[in-house]
């Protein structure tokens, strides 16, 4: 009975969530605008950052693929070095209340204190609308937006889908390549890849 109910719930939820259009934003198209509140209560809109390169990084601190990059400081190091070059790096959490990765702002600030983050802000997309607008599938899932608001990268952080931190060193960093290219005003060599990670907990 329980199994039937949980399958029925999943199917119903699936039908409901599928009904809200899940986007698939391709590089070359206009990045969807949004306004979200961060963990410190400040509001940010994508339009605030016009003229800057923006990174959107979907996050769930309990996901082993996110831990792979945060554990050894890989994500924080990317956030810091590109932040120093003027990139606006925003982490976004679309976990719905009750599901993994959802925290109150107070809990978030404790987590960020403990784990470290050099993102400009962690945005709380509690109703999942921004995630759905971008088609964010996994944590991590990365998007790079050029200064003119065009999406130039959509996909994985690197080319080694695994949960092992040891795999970072030999991997091809798609995010670094995309950022280096857009900062130099050049076309991004690989604009779209398949992201890997845990599912976003809408």
């Amino acid at each position, binding site marked *: 009975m329980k*199994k039937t109910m*949980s399958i029925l719930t*999943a*199917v119903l*939820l*699936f039908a*409901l*969530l*599928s009904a*809200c259009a*899940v986007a*698939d934003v*391709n590089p070359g198209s206009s990045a969807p605008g949004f306004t979200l509140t961060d963990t410190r209560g400040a509001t940010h809109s994508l339009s605030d950052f016009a003229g800057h390169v923006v990174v959107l990084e979907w996050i769930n601190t*309990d*996901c*082993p*693929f996110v831990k792979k990059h945060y554990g050894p400081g890989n994500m924080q190091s990317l956030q810091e070095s590109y932040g120093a070059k003027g990139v606006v790096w925003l982490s976004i959490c679309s976990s719905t209340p009750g*599901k*993994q990765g959802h925290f109150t702002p107070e809990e978030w600030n404790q987590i960020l204190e403990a784990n470290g983050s050099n993102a400009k802000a962690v945005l709380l997309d509690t109703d999942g609308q921004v995630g*759905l607008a971008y088609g964010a*599938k*996994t944590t991590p899932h990365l998007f790079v937006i050029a200064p003119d608001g065009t999406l130039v990268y959509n996909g994985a952080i690197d080319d080694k*889908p*695994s*949960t*092992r931190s040891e795999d970072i060193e030999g991997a091809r960093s798609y995010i670094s390549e995309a950022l280096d290219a857009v900062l130099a005003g050049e076309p991004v060599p690989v604009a779209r890849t*398949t992201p*890997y*990670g*845990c*599912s*976003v*907990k*809408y």
Partner: protein
Amino acid sequence: MAQRCGVRSVRMKLFTVILVAMIGIGASAAPVRDGPVVAELIADTLTVTPGQPFTIALRMQVDSPWHIYWINPGDSGLAPSLDWTLPEGLAVGDMQHPPPLAIPTPPFMTYGHTGDVVFLMEVRPPADLSGPTVTLSAEVDWLVCHELCIPGFAEVELSLPVRAEPGEPSEHAEIIAAARSQRPIEGVDWALTAQVQADRLILAASPPTDDALPIDSAQFFPYSRTVIRHAAPQTWHAGGGGGRLELVVRDAAEPPEYLSGVLVVQRGGTSLALRVNIPVAGTFSSRPANPKGT
């Protein structure tokens, strides 16, 4: 010297006899649990004959309600992987994945397995394999999920005696035979075609003419992660003994040259899995496509 040797040598002989007896039983090493998964290597035979292929399997028993992933996990997740340590000259074929289940993660879709999952592999021992035993070891990595995901790891091992005579079936021969019967089949007598139609890919399937069982529903699982929208409904239109399955392609995707994956059809309460690897006819455009011809 002789006195010291007396007691010791008996103990040593007893130890050796027990050890040889254990090897003689030829069982796999103990199953390994990591979280909700128990992993082990099993074989369909009790002993190995040099030059004689046999079947093994990675068996992963996944506690309910958890799941592991198919070779194409879908929109998220990660398929299990094996890293072998093998004796010189012995080859093991690729992992054969059972047909998957569609496991929704709303609004997205994944493909995976639940319960007792058996990945078959063929082993080809060299003709000059020397005994007394042969040991296959592997490191298995997987992702097991339900609401949240846990990476899993196990070191699994299989040791079998080497014998000149053909091996007797092991206690696992039946489960391996059952897995073999559930594998996707080539469907040589089936007519399978793929055709672009506006923004859809139409997979048409017709069973052999002497097969009157109608197809109630069907689902296509692609090997590639980038061809179709995994979460889009796949509408089955029955007709002419078989039918057509509508697949929604990913936005702005160029049609692939080939459509590869597994088509699972439901007929009268039983499911049949067919291996699909067919050329795709037509091109995507806003106008109705003209078939290029297969």
